[in-house]
C-alpha cells in the first residue's frame, strides 16, 4: 500500500469540490467584447400588454422600475471604457420615460443608438425632434417599431385592440419627417415568417408611404406572457455542452452584449425577469462568462435570433 502525501490528499479534496467541466450540462459562453450595451430605460412599464411579451411588460408591471438618467449615464460611461460599439434602449415603452430625450442625447454623444418602441406615443412634435436628432447626430440613430400583423385583426390579436392603427399612425408621423424606422415583426403568426409574409409587410408599408421599407423578423420566446399564450419550452429544448462551435458562439448576441436595468445587470434583453440570470448590481459585475442554461438560449441558437437590428 502506498502512502499518500499531504499534497496528494489536498489535491484529491480539491478535485471533489471543483465541478468537473465535462459533467456540466450547459455550455459556457465567454464575453468576447462588449459591442452592445442594452438599457431597459423604462423597466417593464409599457402602454401595451402584448400577449407575446417575453417579459410581461404592461401598464402595471413595475418589476423593473424606470432607470434614472444617472443610472443610464453610469452604465454608458462604464461601457465606453470597455470600447462599446453601440447602444440599444428598450422597455417597456421607452417614450413613456419623461427624460428619454436627455437619455437619447447622452448615448449619441458616444456611439450609435437604436430605440425599440411601439410608436404609439410618437406625436408630431416628437417625430420632429427625432428627425432633427437623427440629422444632427454623427452616429446612426435608429428607431425600431414593433408591428405584428399586416391587418388590424392579425396585429391586434397580439398587441391589443386598436393598436394596429395607433402604431401605424406613429410610423406615418416618422415618415412625414423623413425617418425610416425598422418595422420589427415577431412571427407569432407562423405564416408571416416566410417570404410571402415579408412581401405582405413590404406592400403595407409602401402603401403607408414608406418608399424604402426596412424589416426585421424575430422568433417568439416561449417565456413571460408568451408562455401563457402558446406553450412553454419542452424539456429537451436546452443547450447542451458541446452544442456550440466557435462560429455558433460568435453568432449568439450574448457573446458581445450585456443588459443593464434599474435592478442590475443581465446577459441579454430576454432574461431580465429571471433572478438566476442576474449577474450583479452594475455592468462591471456582468463583464464575465455566462452559462447558457436557460431554455430561451435554445431559441437564440436554433432560430439564429439576435435582438440587434
Amino acid at each position, binding site marked *: 500500500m502506498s502512502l499518500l502525501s499531504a499534497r496528494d490528499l489536498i489535491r484529491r479534496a480539491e478535485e471533489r469540490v471543483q465541478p468537473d467541466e465535462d459533467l456540466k450540462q450547459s455550455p459556457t459562453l465567454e464575453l468576447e*467584447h462588449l*459591442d452592445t450595451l442594452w438599457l431597459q430605460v423604462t423597466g417593464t412599464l409599457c402602454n401595451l400588454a402584448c400577449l407575446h411579451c417575453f417579459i410581461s411588460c404592461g401598464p402595471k408591471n413595475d418589476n423593473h422600475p424606470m432607470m434614472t438618467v444617472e443610472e443610464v449615464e453610469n452604465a454608458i460611461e462604464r461601457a*465606453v*471604457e*470597455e*470600447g*462599446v*460599439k*453601440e447602444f440599444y434602449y428598450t422597455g417597456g415603452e421607452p417614450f413613456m420615460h419623461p427624460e428619454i430625450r436627455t437619455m437619447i442625447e447622452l448615448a449619441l454623444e*458616444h*456611439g*450609435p443608438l437604436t430605440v425599440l418602441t411601439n410608436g404609439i406615443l410618437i406625436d408630431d412634435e416628437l417625430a420632429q425632434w427625432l428627425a432633427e436628432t*437623427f440629422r444632427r447626430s*454623427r*452616429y*446612426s*440613430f*435608429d428607431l425600431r417599431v414593433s408591428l405584428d400583423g399586416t391587418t388590424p385583426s392579425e396585429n391586434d390579436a397580439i398587441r391589443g385592440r386598436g393598436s394596429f392603427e395607433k402604431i401605424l399612425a406613429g410610423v406615418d408621423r416618422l415618415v412625414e419627417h*423623413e425617418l*425610416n424606422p425598422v418595422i420589427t415583426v415577431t412571427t407569432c403568426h407562423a405564416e408571416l415568417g416566410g*417570404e410571402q409574409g*415579408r412581401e405582405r409587410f413590404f406592400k403595407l408599408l409602401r402603401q403607408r408611404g414608406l418608399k*424604402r421599407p*426596412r*424589416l426585421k423578423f424575430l422568433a417568439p420566446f416561449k417565456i413571460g406572457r408568451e408562455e401563457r399564450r402558446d406553450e412553454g419550452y419542452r424539456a429537451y429544448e436546452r443547450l447542451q455542452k458541446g452544442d456550440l462551435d466557435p462560429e455558433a458562439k*460568435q453568432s449568439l448576441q450574448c457573446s458581445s452584449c450585456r443588459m443593464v436595468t434599474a435592478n442590475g445587470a443581465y446577459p441579454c434583453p430576454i432574461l431580465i425577469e429571471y433572478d438566476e440570470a442576474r449577474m450583479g448590481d452594475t455592468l462591471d459585475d456582468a463583464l464575465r462568462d455566462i452559462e447558457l442554461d436557460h431554455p430561451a438560449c435554445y431559441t437564440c441558437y436554433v432560430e439564429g435570433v439576435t435582438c440587434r437590428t
Partner: protein
Amino acid sequence: MSDLNKATTSQKTGTKFAVFGGVYNNHLSLKATLRDARSKGARHLYCLGDMGGFGPHPDRVFAPLRDSTDLSVMQGNYDHSIGHRLDDCACGYTDPRDNHFAQLSYDYTLENTSDTHKDWLRGLPREIRCLWGGCRVLMAHGSPRRVNEFLWESTCSDVFLAYLLDEWEADLLLVTHTGIPWRRRLDDGRQVVNVGAIGRPANNGRTDVEYALVDVGPDGIDISIEQVGYDHQRLAHEMRNEGLPQEFVETILSGWWTTCLEVLPAKERAAGIH
C-alpha cells in the same frame, strides 16, 4: 494572433501608397484604378480583397492582380468562399431579396472563375501588416476580428475603433467590405479608413469608384479618398451581354445601389435613393 497568413513589409517615409478593395469582377475600373494610383505616384498598391461578385467576366481581373510586382493582395470573404468552392459568399444577408441577388452573382462568379485562380484566392493572406514611417499599419477585409464584419462610418463609435487599434496593435487600420469609404482620425492621432470599393459606385449617385491614397510624409500620414472614372457604359454593356440582372446594370449606370440594401444602417440608407 497567429503568424499564419500575414504579409509584412517595411517602408521609409516620403512615399505614397494606394489601398483599394471590392473589385467585384469590374476589370475596367480595376485597370483604371491601377493607372490612376500609379500616375499619382503610388510606390506600392494594396488590394483588400473581394475580387468577385456583381460584374462580368470574373477571370479578367486576375491578370492585372497577379502580374503586378507593385501590388499586394489579401483575401476577402468572397475570395475565401470562391477559393474553397463553397456554396455561398458568406456575406451574411437575411433579406430573401438580397440573398437572391447575392446568390445569383456568386453562382455566376464561381462558375466562371478558373481553377488556377480559385487556388490562388485560397492561398491569399487574411491580413497585411506594414510599418510606414514608424506607423503600425494593419489592413483587414471587414475588420481585424472578422472577415465579414461591416465597419460603417455611422455605426462605429470612436471608442470601439480605439479598442480595435489597441487590441490588434495598430496606429492605422485600413478596411473595405462595406463599399462606402470613410476616414476617421481619433483624438490621439490614430486613424481608421474604410477604403470603399472599386467594383461599384458608393451609393452616391456618381458612376466613379473610390480608393484610398496614403501619403507618408515626415510630419505624419495624410489619407485622401480618390475618385476614379472608367468606361462604365462598356461595363454595363458587358453585364447585359452576360445576362447579369438589370438591377446590377442600373447601379453601374446610376451610381445608386439597388440590391443588398438591408445591411445599410439608417444614416447610410438615408443617403441613397432606394
